[in-house]
């Protein structure tokens, strides 16, 4: 038994429309890890490689101690992707009967309990469900597999605040078992603060930041000012953003606050600040790589 539910080493995947470059990361068992980054950053590609739906060009992906994608592993992983894996014409109540036999650990009683608890209309066709109901059905299908690892791709997109909160509650309930792990992607940073224990910021196919969420608030601050930045301050800053009126905002390490003049405002970094500035840093580096290639 390892302490990491997912270990990715030197993963590179290149396809026409997307790429991951030299990704190294781990997802600790017993915690909720949030994968965050702008649309198109590589979040879904990463999740699909964890699920074994995309084969790496180089590197390897280990899930629950085995190579990703094998049947034995897939039986221990529950998945919610953007498209539900139930046919549109199926009735909600028949879903378990139809797909349950595909999974060794399918728990039909639990599935029915969840369907009732989520208030899903049992007689409705799958394609007649609202977005929120579809996510809940997907989640019921994922949880009924009695997984150890739950992988959720943008589960809250299109959900109203009430449904988002219900989803977070379900995730926390799943996490009551210390052997359980959740990996979910989102582009809404605010969702991370009260749910995620660890965050991984992805941008332009690379991991821009990876760490426990509380450490991030201790480690970083935001400096805002206007005019010229000293060379040292510029070099120590992460993801410098300028606005049209000559003002700038940059993420700095808490230890570097002394590098800035007194007229610079230094504030606590929010999760949002860290995501934005690390994404900017990754974007600039990506551009530089692009220039070198050209």
């Amino acid at each position, binding site marked *: 038994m390892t302490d990491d539910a997912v270990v990715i080493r030197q993963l590179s995947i290149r396809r026409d429309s997307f790429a991951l470059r030299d990704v190294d990361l781990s997802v600790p068992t017993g915690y909720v890890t949030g994968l965050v980054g702008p649309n198109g950053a590589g979040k879904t590609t990463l999740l699909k490689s964890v699920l074994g739906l995309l084969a790496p060009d180089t590197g390897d992906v280990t899930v629950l101690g085995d190579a990703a994608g094998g049947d034995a592993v897939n039986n221990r992983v529950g998945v919610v992707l953007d498209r539900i894996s139930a046919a549109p014409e199926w009735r909600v109540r028949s879903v378990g009967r139809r797909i349950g036999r595909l999974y060794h650990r399918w728990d039909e009683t639990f599935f029915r309990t969840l369907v009732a608890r989520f208030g899903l209309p049992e007689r409705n066709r799958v394609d007649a469900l609202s977005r929120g109901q579809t996510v809940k059905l997907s989640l019921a299908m994922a949880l009924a597999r009695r997984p150890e690892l739950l992988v959720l791709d943008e589960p809250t997109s299109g959900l109203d605040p009430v449904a988002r909160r219900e989803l*977070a*509650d379900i995730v926390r*309930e799943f996490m009551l078992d210390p052997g359980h792990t959740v990996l979910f992607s989102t582009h809404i940073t605010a969702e991370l603060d*009260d749910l995620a*224990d660890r965050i991984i910021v992805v941008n332009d196919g690379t991991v821009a930041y990876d760490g426990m969420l*509380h450490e991030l608030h201790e480690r970083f601050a935001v400096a805002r000012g206007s005019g010229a930045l000293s060379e040292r301050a510029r070099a120590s800053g992460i993801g410098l953003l300028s606005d049209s009126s000559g003002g700038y905002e940059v993420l700095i390490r808490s230890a570097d606050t002394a590098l800035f003049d007194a007229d610079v405002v230094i504030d606590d970094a929010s999760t949002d600040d860290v995501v934005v500035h690390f994404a900017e840093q990754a974007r600039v580096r990506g551009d530089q790589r692009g220039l070198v290639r050209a």
Partner: protein
Amino acid sequence: MSTTSGVPLYEQIKTQVRAAIHGGDLRDGALLPSLRQLAAQLRVSIITVTRAYNDLVAEGLVANEHGRGFAVLPVDRAVATAALQERVDRGIDEVVTAARAAQVSRDDLLRRVERQWNQE
């Protein structure tokens, strides 16, 4: 628990557990709620509760008994009393500051305290 008070959530958890221990609500040997139960109940991340509990371990108030959970340690009565007294002083400090800001007179303030005391 409040997410808008400006006090970090893990500090609020610490303060509440500390007060419960010093006040005698949580006695020697009592188990704290499990990390995961408390996280789910308070709708916070697991790491938030973990930090609070680890800090309480460092303060010598609870011990992590592996397999059993976090258990309350015997309290030094003198320390507990001092902590409770300090809480009273902090509260009074706040009340006096608020009263002065609102221009509540000394007599009026004492009357209000008296009334509150009698209500309990």
